């Protein structure tokens, strides 16, 4: 089976930092097979979101090897790399939905990479595949919201609406960032199950960052622990012990001294912090 991702000594810096600044991800080695499902856990600021963005070709690594679906995306031309992006789907933690848009339009936007411009325009006038949008929303219990406006949805509904897009994409890899952050336990399980079933049905790879360690251990067979930009462990769930989890989340700022200088961007606008 071919690997979806092959990371070798991959180092990534934040886009804003200058050369020589601290890396967000340090020398990661990670191989993810096609169709594999894994959970990414770790404390806030560990680099989970940066890793997902890197896997989505939304973030260029600084050094190391990055292989995606058999090629190095950053060695391709811009057009080829952009074509590759349509084979992945990154669902950010805050759902990227314009508040004034209708749910049906916002969900169908996942089809855009496959649509011609003319088709995209006509779908703004009359939704092209309302049935497909309805089916995707129903999987997350949102079928009745098909023609509602996004700003009428609650936070949890918006989050699931953003995830319904995943089902309408034809991605071979789902990269989902904190899909459960605004959901109650029952909806969390329903949502995670819908994502995992869809990934399994189309043999897509699923990488899911989670704050709920219990959910991660209960639903994913492979767990990757990330802390301070490094992989602490990468193991089948049977081998992940409570001690490993405790060490992963151990609060290091308690004993470390506070930094004397505040980290601020090199250039500050006059009203930047108003």
């Amino acid at each position, binding site marked *: 089976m071919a690997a979806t991702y092959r990371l070798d000594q991959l180092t990534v810096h934040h*886009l*804003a930092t200058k050369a020589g600044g601290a890396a967000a991800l340090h020398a990661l080695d990670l191989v993810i097979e096609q169709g594999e499902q894994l959970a990414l856990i770790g404390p806030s600021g560990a680099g989970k979101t940066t890793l997902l*963005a890197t896997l*989505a*070709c*939304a*973030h*260029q690594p600084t050094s190391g090897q990055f292989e995606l679906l058999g090629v190095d995306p*950053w060695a391709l031309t*811009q057009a080829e790399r*952009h*074509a*590759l*992006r*349509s*084979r*992945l*789907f*990154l669902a*950010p933690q*805050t759902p*990227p*939905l*314009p*508040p*004034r*848009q209708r749910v049906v*339009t*916002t969900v169908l*936007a*996942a089809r*855009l*990479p496959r*649509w011609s*411009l003319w088709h*995209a*325009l006509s779908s*703004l006038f009359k939704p092209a595949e309302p049935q497909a949008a309805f089916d995707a929303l129903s999987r997350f219990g949102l079928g009745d919201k098909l023609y509602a406006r996004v700003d009428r949805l609650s936070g949890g509904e918006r989050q699931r609406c953003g995830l319904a897009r995943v089902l309408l*994409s034809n*991605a071979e890899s789902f990269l989902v960032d904190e899909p459960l952050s605004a959901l109650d336990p029952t909806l969390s399980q329903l949502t995670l199950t819908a994502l995992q079933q869809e990934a399994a049905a189309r043999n897509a790879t699923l990488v899911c960052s989670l704050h709920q360690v219990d959910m991660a251990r209960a639903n994913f067979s492979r767990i990757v622990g990330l802390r301070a930009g490094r992989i602490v462990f990468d193991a089948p769930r049977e081998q992940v012990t409570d001690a490993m989890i405790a060490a992963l989340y151990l609060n290091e700022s308690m004993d470390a001294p*506070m930094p*004397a200088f*505040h980290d*601020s961007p090199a250039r*500050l606008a*006059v*009203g*930047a*912090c108003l």
Partner: protein
Amino acid sequence: MAAAQRHPDPAFRQRIVTGIVCLLLLWPMLVYSEFKPWILFDAQSLKSTGAFLAEFFTPAHDVEFLKMVLDQTWVTVAIATCGLALAMLGAIPATLLVTERLSISMLGTNRMRLPARALRQVVRVILILLRSVPELVWALLFVRIVGLGPTAGVIAIALTYCGMLGKVYAEILESSDAHASDSLLVNGSSRLAALLYGALPESAAELISYTVYRWECAIRGSAVMGFVGAGGLGQRMDESIKNMAGSEVSTMLIVFVLLVALADLVSTWLRKDLV
């Protein structure tokens, strides 16, 4: 020791310095522009203002004149609308070239490729050139080329407003929330698709209200350009002022107020539909 640590705001000093520099720059501007508002209130000015206003309180209202005003109002609205439509035809593609949003080459690298950057700068300079020449000057120029009449006004508005719309449209897009359009781009959408499904829903209301406001400005602009022979209500107003017919000027000014109020109404109505 932790309590003794200070946390100075790194932006504070820069703000103070910027404030002082702005004041220093503004003062000579006030002096050089000879801004002396008290001249308005000396005895002679007040007297001539009073005479002027007295004339104004009896707007001309004979049928023949009103018919002419209606006719010319229509010409003015047509000049403004055609000019703005032509301006948008140029401004919308220019916006897409100039805006830093929706850049596929910046995805993941935060750097724009050199050819793209060069193209952006070229279009930006063209927009600056277009809007830095006042529409009155364009009108004077085109009255010489295409002769007296509305055509010169339409071309003048189209050129200046193309520059303004292109710049402001791009800035409206850049100041809106990029999350939706960026996310579409990251998942493989084309630029135009991301614009239609991500950026436009975020900023449609602002874009529309600015466009309607510009239409309002174009109506006023076409009045001014009438004075140099570019047709419409302004040309008639020029004639009336030269004939010292204050009541006719008054009627035409009322028409302008009504037109601006109409623009305001249209803008409110369109925004209510969208927001």
